[in-house]
């Protein structure tokens, strides 16, 4: 097969680009997925005081600024060798749970639901949030927007702004919570729980009761046998804000569990000549190519992998849904990629319950907001779960706390190899000789990576509400046969 080298200086116009190589039979032999990458954020941080970095990194991405703020805030804590006060840690986590609520609601109703509520091969003009509202009703649509907005209001209250978050400072937070604000959040959190329960019911009634959809989830060309990664607490329960990173193998056995500062002993990154993004993999297993299985170091870091890597959820209602999901899908771990949508809803319920727990915690209105900084700043790592994967921020500073070097592994980057493999598998399953590649086929391929909720906003941001795709079909010689484009 002809080797294709992509000149990284060549600009793509913001489209995702897929190169499909066909074999002599006209079937898919190989597939390469490329997304243009933002350049230079780590360099941009050099020379900045580490106290400011958690605010600066909110500029990486408009979709998950809270995630970057939290990871950078925790890294700054580590740079100073300080543990935030209990009140500060709880306020951060409360903000973060609201951030998860808003994001997961938006993803499920705007991106996942159209494929299942409207149908994967439905006309593109209907396969969106409007189509979903058309099926489930305006009242539900109003509630979606309302709950999302309420979550963002909580983010703005705690974070200083819903996107340009300013709450963190090394060792703590800048602002506390009054009793009146606490009560207000408490009531709103109860609303989140009810809406999360409603959303899970909707998934049950529309998706799980439809055998065709269950078949797509369980038998569709999307599943991969990968290692699963996620952050867990001391009881191995899912935690988005703090804990250790745990990785389990294809059978659910623990492969490793590490503290943030040790991440480089377990994860490393590979560069491919045809890709703008790196490919992290498990160091001790090694890189064996774009293959799955226990001997391949490729892993995924997603809502499904977080649940796979844990022993359960830390809140009661979410735990019930966790058990139901695994019972329905045949046990743990689950490797059906599209089950990520279900896992995401279980996480929505957990986030909502955790919001309520924190809002009812007596320490949440405490006034001890920042621990004293007594150590000379040096180096620190902060890890949180972003909605779309484990997010790592690593900063080195001089003795004044000025950043000299930075390394960031964003959530989606963890899944880069998995996304490529999912796409290839989907393409091989759906594109065959004699099959007309229409919009429905493209959408079913897109369902594969949409499940990951990839933050290509972190990589690119020319995204008109769906992934604009350029798909080039090539013969084995590399000669271009056909281009299918969707804007």
């Amino acid at each position: 097969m002809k080797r294709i080298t992509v000149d990284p200086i060549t600009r793509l116009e913001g489209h995702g680009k897929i190169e499909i190589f066909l074999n002599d039979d006209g079937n898919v032999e190989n597939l390469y997925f490329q997304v243009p990458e933002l350049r230079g954020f780590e360099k941009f941080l050099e020379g900045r005081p580490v106290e400011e970095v958690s605010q600066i990194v909110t500029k990486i991405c408009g979709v998950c600024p809270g995630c970057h703020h939290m990871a950078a805030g925790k890294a700054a804590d580590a740079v100073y060798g300080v543990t935030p006060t209990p009140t500060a840690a709880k306020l951060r986590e409360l903000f973060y749970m609201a951030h998860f609520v808003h994001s997961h609601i938006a993803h499920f109703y705007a991106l996942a639901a159209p494929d299942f509520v409207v149908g994967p091969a439905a006309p593109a003009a209907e396969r969106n949030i409007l189509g979903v509202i058309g099926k489930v009703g305006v009242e539900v649509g109003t509630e979606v927007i309302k709950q999302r907005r309420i979550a963002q209001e909580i983010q703005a209250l705690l974070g200083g702004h819903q996107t340009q978050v300013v709450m963190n400072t090394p060792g703590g937070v800048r602002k506390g919570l009054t009793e009146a604000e606490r009560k207000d959040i408490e009531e709103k959190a109860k609303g989140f729980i009810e809406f999360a329960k409603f959303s899970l019911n909707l998934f049950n009634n529309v998706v799980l009761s439809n055998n065709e959809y269950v078949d797509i989830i369980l038998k569709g060309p999307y599943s991969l046998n990968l290692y699963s990664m996620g952050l867990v607490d001391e009881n191995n329960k899912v935690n988005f804000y703090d804990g250790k990173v745990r990785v389990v193998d294809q059978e659910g056995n623990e492969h490793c569990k590490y503290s943030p500062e040790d991440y480089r002993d377990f994860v490393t990154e590979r560069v491919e000549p045809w890709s703008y993004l790196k490919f992290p993999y498990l160091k001790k297993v090694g890189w064996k190519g774009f293959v799955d299985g226990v001997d391949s170091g490729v892993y995924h870091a997603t809502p499904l992998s977080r649940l796979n890597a844990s022993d359960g959820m830390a809140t009661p209602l979410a735990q019930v849904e966790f058990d139901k999901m695994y019972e329905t899908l045949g046990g743990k771990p689950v490797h059906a990629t599209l089950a990520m949508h279900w896992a995401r809803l279980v996480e929505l319920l957990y986030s909502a319950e955790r919001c309520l727990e924190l809002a009812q915690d007596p320490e949440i209105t405490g006034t001890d907001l920042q621990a004293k900084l007594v150590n000379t700043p040096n180096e620190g790592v902060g890890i949180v779960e972003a909605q779309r994967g484990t997010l790592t921020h690593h900063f080195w500073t001089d003795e004044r706390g000025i950043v000299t070097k930075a390394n960031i592994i964003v959530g989606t980057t963890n899944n880069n190899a998995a996304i490529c493999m999912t796409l290839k598998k989907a393409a091989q399953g759906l594109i065959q000789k004699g099959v007309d590649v229409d919009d429905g086929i493209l959408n079913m391929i897109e369902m594969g990576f949409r499940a990951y909720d990839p933050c290509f906003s972190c990589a690119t941001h020319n995204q008109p509400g769906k992934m604009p795709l350029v798909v080039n079909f090539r013969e084995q010689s590399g000669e271009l046969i056909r281009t299918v484009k969707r804007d």
Partner: protein
Amino acid sequence: MHGVRFFTWPPHRCFLLKKIMCKEKILVLGFGNEVLTDDGIAVKLVKHLKENDKNPQIVYDTSWLGGLEILEYLNDDYKAVVFIDAIITGKNKPGAIEQYDLDNFKETLHLSNLHDSSFINTIKLGRKLGYKIPEYIKVISIEIVEDKLFGNNFSMEIESKYSEIKDSVSAILHTILETIK
């Protein structure tokens, strides 16, 4: 001051008052990321316009992300809304300005959001859900050069044209104000 009572509006009347006042105003929303070289041109532009334009009929605001986020700005019953955003077509000269309505909308960098909804679908959704979205909607795009490199300053091409871009956009806004009267 002794003997003086200060009257304050109760919150619900402030809310209604704001809605009444907005009915005669246009909302100008600039989108972009200010640390991504030319990407934030609309945000910087709107901030500069706001500083210098004291016309009470124009409300200036900025955001980063489009999609469903847009609905958060559109429920105050404005007479018109103008979105300003960067675009990269590769077909126009840097700094070129174009205007679109909903009928001939061309995707700019931020008005749609991969993580939830496109711009057009967001407007349709808002109308379906009863948001007070004005009939008059205009999108102003500015052709830029660099949007993948982190930096506080514009590219040389955009920097050299920025003053002209600002004046052109300001003129467009005042023309719109006259049109909708």
